[in-house]
């Protein structure tokens, strides 16, 4: 592969690299720089050192957002993975075995197709959909039923202590199907003989799940945890569209992405917003490093 290699290599790489450096690498690098200034878009930026970061420490909305990421970071992966694992197990090995072939329960294919569908929809669209579902009067899907039955309507998005959980529920609603499919792929690669052997020894389905499926699925679970963790650090579209006042009521559902957007494009505090972006970056990085470190264990060869 010698003749004319370099012109070809450069020709193929030039445009992608140029585009990538212009729109991705350069902005990332500048973000760190802008976060050290008091730039508000009009006059030239002034260097203020770590002032923005010091102000972050006293910013109530910032800490509220960080706290919400903490809740999201625990609830979203734990609940999603638990539900998805349960369903994936049912769909793949929950049924009887015939001729040494593990089978899922009846209708597995149908369920897998239906569960996965929300993944195809845009989060912003889902957020609008659930605005309707959660409506606080008789026109809402849930409250329409509750009020017909004579109950008081539940103010899903209006009560501050319920709003965040209503949003988490929607994120779980969307995510479960994806992880059912992901775990199914992992379970399909576990050899049937292992289940056979365990069943011959009298293992119940519950034992099968905890002693066979779960350990052999560890790598996939780790991937799922990282993915959901990254999703927990974003959550912009859902909060921006679904929640009251984009992050309300009174900041009860705000997330860092929302605060960055608000500070930058509503208040024009570009320096301050960039400092929040840097904080978000380090939080994400810490999470990824911690996950990889804590979940490290010997993978089982099979």
């Amino acid at each position, binding site marked *: 592969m010698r003749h004319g290699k370099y012109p070809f290599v450069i020709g193929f790489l030039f445009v*992608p690299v140029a585009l990538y450096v212009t729109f991705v690498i350069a902005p990332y690098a500048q*973000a760190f720089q802008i976060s050290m200034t008091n730039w508000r878009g009009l006059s030239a930026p002034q260097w203020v050192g770590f002032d923005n970061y010091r102000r972050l420490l006293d910013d109530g909305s910032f800490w509220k957002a960080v706290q919400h990421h903490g809740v999201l970071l625990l609830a979203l992966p734990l609940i999603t993975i638990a539900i998805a694992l349960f369903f994936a197990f049912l769909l793949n090995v929950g049924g009887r075995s015939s001729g040494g072939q593990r089978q899922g329960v009846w209708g597995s294919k149908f369920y897998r197709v239906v569960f996965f569908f929300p993944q195809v929809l845009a989060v912003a669209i889902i957020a609008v959909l659930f605005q309707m579902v959660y409506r606080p009067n008789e026109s809402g899907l849930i409250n329409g039923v509750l009020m017909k039955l004579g109950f008081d309507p539940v103010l899903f998005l209006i009560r501050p202590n319920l709003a965040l959980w209503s949003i988490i529920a929607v994120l779980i609603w969307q995510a479960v199907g994806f992880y059912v499919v992901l775990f199914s792929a992992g379970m399909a690669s576990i050899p049937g003989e292992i289940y056979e052997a365990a069943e011959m020894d009298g293992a119940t389905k519950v034992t099968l799940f905890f002693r066979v499926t779960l350990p052999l699925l560890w790598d996939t679970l780790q991937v799922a945890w990282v993915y959901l963790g990254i999703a927990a650090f974003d959550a912009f579209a859902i909060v921006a569209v679904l929640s009251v006042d984009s992050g309300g009521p009174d900041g009860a559902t705000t997330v860092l992405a929302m605060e960055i957007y608000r500070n*930058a494009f509503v208040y024009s505090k570009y320096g301050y917003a960039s400092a929040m972006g840097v904080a978000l970056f380090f939080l994400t990085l810490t999470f990824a490093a911690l996950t990889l470190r804590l979940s490290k264990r010997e993978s089982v060869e099979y």
Partner: protein
Amino acid sequence: MNPQSTLPPTPAALPPKTGDPGASTGRGRKGPRSEVRLFAGLGHVALAVWAVIVIVPILWTFLAAFKNTSEIFSSPWTLPAELRWENFGRAWTKANVGRYFLNSVIVVSCSTFLTMLLGSMAAYVLARYRFWGNRAIYYLFVSGLAFPVFLALVPLFFVVKNLGLLDTHTGLVLVYTAYSLPFTVFFLAAFFKTLPSSVAEAGLIDGCGHTRLFFQVMMPMAKPGLISVAIFNIIGQWAQYQLPLVLLSNAKDKWVLTQGIADISVNAGYEADWSGLFAALTIAILPMIIVYAVFQRQIQAGLTSGAVK
């Protein structure tokens, strides 16, 4: 759904069917079998409940799209009294859903095409040619996977503004493409590495140039990988909300679907046109159901491709 089907096979029917003598002789206890029945029964209920939770909100939206406002309030759970197609007409033209939809189609088809072209070119060269700086460029691309887009949001806005591309589809297409490159290059580079080199060598010996080799030999061979990544990119770019929100904020006629629907939902509150909003939502969701029904297998494979390394 059929209650009969939730019953597991009767014990008498099971042993002959399994065709594995070890399975029936191995256990004399009754425990596992009744436990299987209970587990399967509960499992079916759970699966059916979740299916209902997924389907009902969407179905309910489709029905509400045919109602009028008083019906939406008085009888949210009944079928519409008549099929009011005019709701869709109003959403399509007056609320501009038609325009938003078209804009999304234009932007996503351009950006996915560009992403696939540039991404596969870069991935191919990085995967199969040895040259100085190869690893550095590869890691430059892959590092993009680790950064949250929100870190770059402010500077990105000004980069696009200074290039005069703010409020243009061109700007959005270039930005989508740039942010899709890390995953595309990462995935396709791994894919190109797995292709046999004998074909490429034979092509070169036959006097085929590097460029022709890529487009006429390697690209067709990499088709399965290209399709997976293309689906991943189409769904991801179609769902984008934050980038168009920032980059197209002042050009309402250029808005994409996600942005448009979110805006209609805000306005629906002022104008009390709930049926129009339901119709708009239906227009946004229904095509996805059709596309999903047709390409269900490929879409599942494409979207999970990122996780299965």
